[in-house]
């Protein structure tokens, strides 16, 4: 490769803001149309209402975009924030960034929570949040140098195209002597040519002396990044300590950090062992509970899943510290060294694979009928290097494979490739095609919602069947859990603001296994409380895993074990110690509720955010086909007889599929009613005037959007 060429086209020096109680109270805007670099103060009332993280991102985006803004319009803004608690070394999961943009897949705001050091480095460089808008004419690198207090925009030539090499190259370029000072955000060629491009956020792994990365995967923010011709955003900062946030109560912060970290150190080895196996322990657990997606979510288990779970990956993962944030004791970001891909541009070379996590194993493994740990590693590697979201890739390919097996598409459409379940080489070839923007892969890269239109219009495929089996809602592909037996989790997916991602609510076991929420009201309460609480992690710059994936030994004896109230108390203490705002557990919910409802109204502003958009494909609710029904016949027959009181003695399987569908779809609509009521929304899923006033988000522009939608 030729020598990389970064030509400086704009540079400013700035006076670094003093960080007070977790905040710099400044935002940075980079407009690529005019190469403007603008530093703005953040008003106190905005801070108090939106808290930080996703809240700040959404507020800046709201002001940046119009109702008519499309994902590839210049005014679409990519916003990145870490929140007031982000950047606390040693606090488990204390270094997250939250990224937002208008999504190419959904047309609405999307948010993604990601590890790596970028968010904290950016904050300690002087900015709570950055907003990048406009479109560059040439490939561009943005450099935020918190050590020299300079911001630069470069025109870039001869940079590597993939994230794997690009992150490494830029890390060394910007601080050869101390690469630990650098964190790089990159996309890749797949982000350029698909609608589900991800962003890779890097950090320097001092033990292995190499760049590592985590992904802001969901919703195609990488695609927006590539469309703006951004090759990378780089942040550089020096040493960080627990004093970097200038906390209001340093001793209190030290105490709560030490307490939480110590508990995880002691209990993780006894519980999920995430510091050894990451989230791959979920593979056998989901399989045993019939919740592991197999063959495009048709089934929930498969005997061969034993070869793609923790027992295999524990031995493959490279040993060493794998925290994506300084001193995180969960340390679940495992990887595999010296992996040699058997396809693609890295074929035969040795690479380091960052992953896989559960979602990648399930989405790109069992869901595709690929029960081979090595192939999953290769898919993981190329998705990251190309900047592709492994969840959307896996779920989209599962849809394609089921369409292929049902002859909705044939080799005439797939460039001659057999795309039956289990076709691992052809699955990889599709991914390479996505990166090149060529062939059938270019169609798959548009995502399921657009594929359904193309398959119906151009290939004559049955739209009704594709609506049933295409695992997308709001345009976003489902993450990797089977929800057929959990009505609450159907709502967890279908009522999620950005689309079916499990970060708002994961209620499958509470609902399906423990029967902890038997009534609609119970489910609605859970679908209020859990999304509100989980939203708070995104406001503050935190990871949710330390909350409830490792829990106190006495948690089971508490009145509400699912909430892990002891940890919520610690989080309230953490917030109080950093920000000086005396905070209790109930305050956490109130903070989140304001931002949550604001995001719902943001969806409304963009033409979504109503009941009709909270639908899910029937595959998420019940068995679409006779094959599916008969695979779990005893379960479904019993439900028809005992739960719904039907006489099924003369029914064919096809009749039973139809009868069950009618009942389950009715239940889902009743669930919507109950949840909307609990959240203070009307029957159409819109927050009421009373709700926005109660939450203090009754800004004139918010009221205007409500008025346009008949809410006065």
């Amino acid at each position, binding site marked *: 490769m030729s020598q990389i060429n970064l030509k400086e086209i704009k540079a400013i020096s700035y006076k670094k803001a003093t960080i007070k109680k977790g905040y710099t109270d400044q935002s940075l805007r980079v407009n690529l149309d005019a190469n403007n670099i603008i530093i703005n103060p953040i008003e106190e009332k905005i801070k108090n209402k939106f808290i930080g993280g996703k809240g700040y991102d959404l507020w800046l985006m709201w002001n940046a975009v119009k109702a008519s803004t499309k994902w590839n319009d210049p005014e679409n803004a990519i916003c990145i924030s870490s929140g007031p608690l982000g950047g606390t070394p040693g606090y488990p999961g204390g270094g997250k960034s939250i990224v937002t943009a208008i999504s190419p897949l959904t047309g609405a705001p999307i948010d993604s929570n990601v590890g790596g050091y970028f968010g904290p480095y950016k904050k300690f460089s002087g900015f709570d949040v950055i907003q990048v808008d406009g479109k560059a004419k040439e490939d561009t690198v943005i450099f935020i140098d918190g050590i020299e207090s300079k911001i630069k925009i470069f025109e870039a030539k001869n940079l590597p195209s993939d994230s794997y090499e690009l992150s490494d190259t830029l890390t060394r370029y910007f601080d050869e002597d101390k690469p630990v000072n650098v964190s790089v955000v990159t996309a890749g060629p797949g982000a350029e040519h698909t609608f589900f491009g991800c962003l890779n956020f890097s950090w320097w792994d001092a033990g292995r002396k190499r760049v590592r990365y985590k992904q802001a995967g969901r919703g195609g923010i990488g695609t927006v990044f590539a469309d703006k011709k951004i090759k990378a955003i780089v942040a550089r900062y020096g040493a960080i300590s627990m004093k970097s946030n200038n906390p209001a109560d340093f001793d209190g912060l030290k105490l709560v950090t030490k307490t939480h970290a110590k508990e995880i150190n002691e209990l993780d080895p*006894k*519980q*999920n062992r995430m510091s050894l196996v990451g*989230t791959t*322990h*979920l593979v*056998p*657990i989901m399989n*045993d*509970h*019939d919740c592991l997606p197999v063959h495009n979510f048709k089934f929930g288990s498969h005997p061969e899943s034993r070869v793609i779970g*923790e*027992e295999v990956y524990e031995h493959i993962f490279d040993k060493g510290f794998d925290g994506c944030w300084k001193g995180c004791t969960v340390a679940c970001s495992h990887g595999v060294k010296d992996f040699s891909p058997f396809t693609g541009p890295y074929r035969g070379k040795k690479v380091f694979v960052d992953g896989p*996590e*559960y*979602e990648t194993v399930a989405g790109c493994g069992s869901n595709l009928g690929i029960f081979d740990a090595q192939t999953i590693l290769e898919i993981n590697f190329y998705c990251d290097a190309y900047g592709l979201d492994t969840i959307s890739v896996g779920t989209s390919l599962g849809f394609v494979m089921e369409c292929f097996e049902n002859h909705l598409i044939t080799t005439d459409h797939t460039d001659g490739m057999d795309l039956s379940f289990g076709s691992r080489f052809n699955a990889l070839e599709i991914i390479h095609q996505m990166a090149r923007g060529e062939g059938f892969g270019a169609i798959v890269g548009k995502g399921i919602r657009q594929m359904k239109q193309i398959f119906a219009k151009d290939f004559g495929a049955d739209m009704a069947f594709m609506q049933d089996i295409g695992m997308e809602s709001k345009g976003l592909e489902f*993450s*990797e*859990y089977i929800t057929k037996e959990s009505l609450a989790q159907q709502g967890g997916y279908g009522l999620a603001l950005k689309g079916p991602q*499990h*970060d708002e609510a*994961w209620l*499958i*076991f*509470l609902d399906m*296994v*423990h029967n902890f929420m038997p009534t609609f009201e119970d489910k609605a309460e859970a679908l209020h409380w859990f999304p509100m609480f989980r939203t708070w992690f995104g406001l503050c710059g935190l990871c949710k895993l330390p909350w*409830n*994936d*490792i*829990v106190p*030994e006495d*948690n*089971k*004896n508490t009145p509400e*074990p*699912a909430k892990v109230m002891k940890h919520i108390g610690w989080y309230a203490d953490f917030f109080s110690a950093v920000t000086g705002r005396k905070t209790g557990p109930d305050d956490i919910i109130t903070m989140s509720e304001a931002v949550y409802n604001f995001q719902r109204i943001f969806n409304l502003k963009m033409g979504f955010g109503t009941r009709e958009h909270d639908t899910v494909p029937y595959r998420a609710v019940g068995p679409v086909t006779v094959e599916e029904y008969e695979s779990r016949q005893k379960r479904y027959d019993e439900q028809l007889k005992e739960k719904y009181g039907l006489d099924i003695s003369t029914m064919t399987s096809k009749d039973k599929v139809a009868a069950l569908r009618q009942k389950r779809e009715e239940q889902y609509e009743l669930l919507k009613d109950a949840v909307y009521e609990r959240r203070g929304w009307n029957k159409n899923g819109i927050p009421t005037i009373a709700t926005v006033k109660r939450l203090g988000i009754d800004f004139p522009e918010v009221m205007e959007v409500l008025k346009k939608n008949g809410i006065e």
Partner: protein
Amino acid sequence: MIEVDGKQVPWSENWTMASLLETLDNVEFCAVARLNGRLVSSPKFAETIIPDNSKIQLLPLVAGG
């Protein structure tokens, strides 16, 4: 004897995970356990025999991704 969450418990022949849980308090949220390091999920509790000298950890509620 077997060890359950660090405590010694007398072992009984043909004991299963399901029968063990029946003897314990506050385990309604236990959907998964580790039996000698291997994961065992609730659908298999009734068929999983506990050998003598086993080490068992009851995992907390499964919280998803």
